[in-house]
């Protein structure tokens, strides 16, 4: 079963890379952008076949390694 996770920076955390991407987009003519925030995306292919169990495991992975909860939020995307 493949489970996806999106990790984003929390609202108040400075994202200098997002800022530079925003500036570059602006310079390319995409001048109607309010803000860009950069994040991370993971696809985790697990042996677990039970949807809820798999999600619980991935949540544990997020808390223990994938995200740093001081600065990041994680969102687990339901497997299709």
């Amino acid at each position, binding site marked *: 079963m493949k489970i996806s996770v999106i990790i984003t920076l929390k609202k108040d*955390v*400075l994202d*200098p*890379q997002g800022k530079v991407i925003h500036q570059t987009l602006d310079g390319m003519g995409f001048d109607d952008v309010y803000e860009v925030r950069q994040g991370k995306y993971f696809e985790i292919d697990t042996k677990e076949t039970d949807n809820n169990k798999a999600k619980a495991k991935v949540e544990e992975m997020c808390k223990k*390694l*994938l995200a*740093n909860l*001081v*600065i990041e939020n994680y969102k687990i995307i339901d497997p299709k």
Partner: protein
Amino acid sequence: MKSSVITFPGSNCDRDMDVALKKFGFKNKMVWHADAELPKSDLVVLPGGFSYGDYLRCGSMASKSKIMQSVINFANSGGMVMGICNGFQILVETGLVPGVLLRNKYLEFICKNVFVKINDKKNKYFKNVDNEVLEFHIAHNEGNYFCTNDQLKEIEDNNQIAINYCDENGKIEDQFNPNGSTKNIAGIFNKEKNVLGMMPHPERMIDASLSGEDGSLFFKNLINNLK
């Protein structure tokens, strides 16, 4: 005094640290990250470098390596643990010291000498250092110290800030902040002050003919404080 320097895949200041520790009288051992047992030590150092290629977040992989459980136990039982640069990043990832180190504010790798002001001397790292200001070297891409407001309050209430970026006279201002760190923080302690994480490299300042001597001051003082 016995010390241990942990080498992770991608550490590159481990041997510099070994040279520095031995120069000032430590009997140092190099310890591989995959070992489980920590040799008997009065000081454990997590050196600078790019452990695991800075994958995921700097220090995140190294913080889960086998030896780190022993280092965490050692720290929790009052053992002296010092993390320099990438070692500091590893320490924040273990949770031994609060906060995180973000990408530098202006997105550039910074490699230069800086001045830091010692904020607290009631600890074994800086007790009896005569100077208020030390000149150290920094070389990092992710040294922008950040913590939540609650954490900052706790850090300040417990006087956990070890050193702040400043000018040569000890003035702590925004213009002397190289990387955007909250409150110009360059290094912090855990609550008990036996664990120190800092971005600057004292081990690069131990030879007058190469760099400077403020690292020598630091290490000479440190070994005396541990005796």
